[in-house]
């Protein structure tokens, strides 16, 4: 959809219409001398719930009202209107832009003062999320894109803006996942893989890519390089939904790795309004677990002692409803009791190829997954 030439005139999209309606209501308030207001879904833990049916984190019904005349809101109100206006502008021009470009495009000193509209990007980013939630849309549909992160290799043929990319022929790099993977940009031409393996660490992904693990096991390997960005999560969601591929997740055995898994599986609190598009509730956890230490006879000295912060985070995870399944409670308790965590690279202590030749095949064969 984006192209380098702006079409001369186009009819407004659904999203553009929503933006304009929001603005219309504000203007009506102003004319009627009412305090102008924007209604926004609340995006904190207090307004988020775990939907037992869809197994997704979802946003609740509670709204906050951001008004012009409440001093605690005035600046944010102004910023919200400005971001909405700029989104309309770039949609009119049919270009996409990065959230950082958006920030720069809007930053200026307010007339008659020394104050800036935005002081830094950490002010504009949450406003974008507010708009996404309020309009029930993705930023990509507002023609915005975020930092991209993550790589893919294996049995899938991708059509990216017309370019055909064979993920089995991407050499040592793999295919870099863009920030916008919506069907308008990215199409799957041919999917031959049997399942998707999502890997927390790029180094491990590279090890598996070098060993052509995806060829031997007929799968797709994806890394998010840590907490996956929206692009990678959306891609997993689409591949699973559209082609029914099972999803296995491989992370460090620590509370942060487990949280990454949970975000892939049921979405995050902050982006709870997007869980339908970003979460993949059928994902399974393949490892590492602290129980692996014994099962795979990993030397104890490659484990790492839990920090105070780790311990706190473990307690928090145990209280999340989506970690309530007994297998997870058991694993978390075990980690807390034993007092150690492990990184994926710890498997290298058993030999460079241990992960691709023994660990993963055994886990997949025996279906040793956590839910």
């Amino acid at each position, binding site marked *: 959809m984006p192209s380098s030439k702006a079409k001369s005139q186009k009819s407004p999209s659904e999203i553009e219409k929503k*933006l*304009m309606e*929001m*603005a*219309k209501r*504000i*203007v009506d308030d*102003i*004319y009627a*001398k009412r*305090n*102008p207001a924007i209604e926004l879904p*609340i*995006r*904190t833990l207090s307004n988020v719930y775990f939907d037992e049916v869809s197994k997704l984190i979802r946003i609740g019904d509670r709204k*906050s*009202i*951001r*008004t*012009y*005349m*409440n*001093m*605690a*809101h*005035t*600046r*944010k*109100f*102004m910023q919200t*209107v*400005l971001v*909405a*206006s700029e989104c*309309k*502008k770039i949609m009119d021009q049919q270009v996409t832009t990065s959230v950082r470009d958006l920030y720069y495009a809007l930053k200026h000193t*307010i*007339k*008659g*003062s020394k*104050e800036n*509209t935005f002081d830094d990007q950490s002010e504009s980013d949450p406003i974008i999320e507010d708009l996404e939630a309020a309009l029930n849309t993705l930023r990509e549909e507002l023609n915005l894109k975020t930092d991209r992160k993550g790589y893919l290799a294996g049995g899938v043929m991708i059509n990216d803006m017309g370019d055909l990319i064979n993920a089995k022929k991407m050499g040592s790099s793999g295919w870099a996942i863009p920030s916008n993977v919506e069907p308008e940009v990215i199409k799957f031409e041919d999917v031959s893989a049997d399942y998707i393996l999502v890997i927390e660490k790029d180094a491990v992904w590279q090890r598996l890519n070098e060993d052509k693990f995806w060829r031997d096991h007929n799968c797709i390997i994806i890394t998010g390089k840590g907490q996956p960005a929206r692009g990678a999560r959306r891609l997993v969601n689409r591949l699973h939904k559209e082609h029914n591929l099972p999803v296995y997740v491989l992370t460090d055995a620590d509370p942060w790795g487990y949280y990454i898994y949970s975000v892939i599986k049921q979405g995050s609190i902050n982006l709870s309004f997007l869980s339908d598009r970003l979460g993949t509730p059928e994902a399974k956890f393949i490892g590492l677990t602290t129980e692996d230490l014994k099962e795979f006879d990993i030397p104890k000295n490659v484990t790492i002692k839990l920090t105070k912060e780790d311990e706190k985070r473990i307690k928090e995870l145990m209280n999340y409803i989506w970690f309530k399944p007994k297998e997870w409670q058991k694993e978390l308790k075990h980690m807390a009791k034993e007092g150690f965590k492990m990184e994926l690279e710890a498997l290298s202590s058993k030999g460079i190829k241990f992960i691709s030749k023994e660990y993963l095949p055994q886990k997949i064969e025996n279906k040793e997954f956590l839910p």
Partner: protein
Amino acid sequence: MAKNAQEMAQTHKAISISEFFEKNRHLLGYDNKIKALLTIIKEAVDNSLDACEEARILPDIYVRIKQLDEERYEIIVQDNGPGIVEKQIPKIFGKLLYGSKFHRHRQSRGQQGIGISGAVLYAQLTTGKATEIESSTGDGNLYNFRLKIDVSRNEPKIIEKGKAPNEDAWRGTRIKFIVEAVYREHKQSVLEYLKQTAIANPFANITFDSPNGRHVFVRGIEELPKEPKAIKPHLEGVEIGILSRMAHQTKARTVSGFLIEDFTRVGKKTAEEICKNAEVNPKTPPRKLVHDDFERLIKAIKKTKLINPPTDCLSPLGKDALISGLKKELNPIWVDAVVRSPAVYRGWPFQIEVGIAYGGDIKGSKVMRLANRVPLLYQAGDCAITKAVTHIDWKNYKLSSKDLSEDPIVIFVHMASVWVPFNSESKESIASYPVIIKEIKLAVQECARKLGIFLSGQIKAREIVERRRILEKYADDIARALANLTGESEEKIEKAIKELVEWRWGEVQEDENDAQQ
């Protein structure tokens, strides 16, 4: 070589109190030459104010410090007080531990009869010069003395003595010292002492000719504080030694009478209850009491509920005088004062008053500590007042810093008492009895609450004006964005926003349904 007891006995000898303080002058406030100057002026001015008050005269005090040599100064302090009768002059100025206030239980500046004669001692020690005193009670005679102290006997030594006709019927006392000293103007200086004195005694005129020029502290009110009454001792806190001594000196003929007459606030019922509990016949003549009787009496007193001492022995400044003093010397934008009800420690009544002045000419923060209207300038760290003030979190009262380090504020704390418990004989800080600290804290907090209300009002007023400015500031940008989004005219929207603000800016909006914003 080794001595036996007989040989040792020959060296034993009585020591005069003058000799003692000559060697231990730091105990009287003569630690160094800067402080010595302050101590002398303090003793003389305190005496003048005490005398004027007792004689119900509005004080006019004149102080002059003149440099004679590098470290030699002439000090003159003159008052319009009642004057001193001729025969008392030598003893008052020339004998340590001689005075009118020690045996009397009433609020006064001086207490021990040691201050002014200490100054005479210091002068003769450092310059060898006699101190000159002129005084008249307002009759036809003007007496003048040049005095020293005979240190080994602790008796006055009259160097010269004269009498002149007092043609103007002048009344008052004038003292002139010549001492080794150093003059400085800093936070513990003579100037600061006189300024605080002027605040605490707004009924006094004080003129000060310093080596650097004249300072005049003009009288702010025309009324003297009410005269404190002397009281008898209170039974609370009396110890067996004192009780038995008093019993042997009393004029009363029965124990019961002794308790009623020699102590304050003891009625017949209380006296008899004490005697009963002590198993002492209330009719026993006090001189016949033996040691065991006193022990039982002390125990009985401790068990008996006693009425608090009367408080007319106290003479606080009062709220109006305090405010007047702070206003005239500090010129603040806000001032208020709190006078607590009297309280009691170890049987002694005392009363705390606090004034706070804020802003205006005040720069930085300062705690002024006073005891019986006398400013305390040294040993702030050890003082009950400092402890009470620094334990308060001033941010609670809308000041900008927890410890006042960034606020223009003067906190004036006055303790009035028959017997102020100082930490040392140089009377520079008040001992930290818990009940004293508590009273100070309550008074300061009450006054600070008033300041807090004033300050938050100021903040609120600023905020409301600020609100309009902020709303208008954003109008331009909001209008442009809304025009782009709706296609309406930017000018029209901006005008509407400004009308909206004009219409509704005064309304206070509270953040209710919107915790996350």
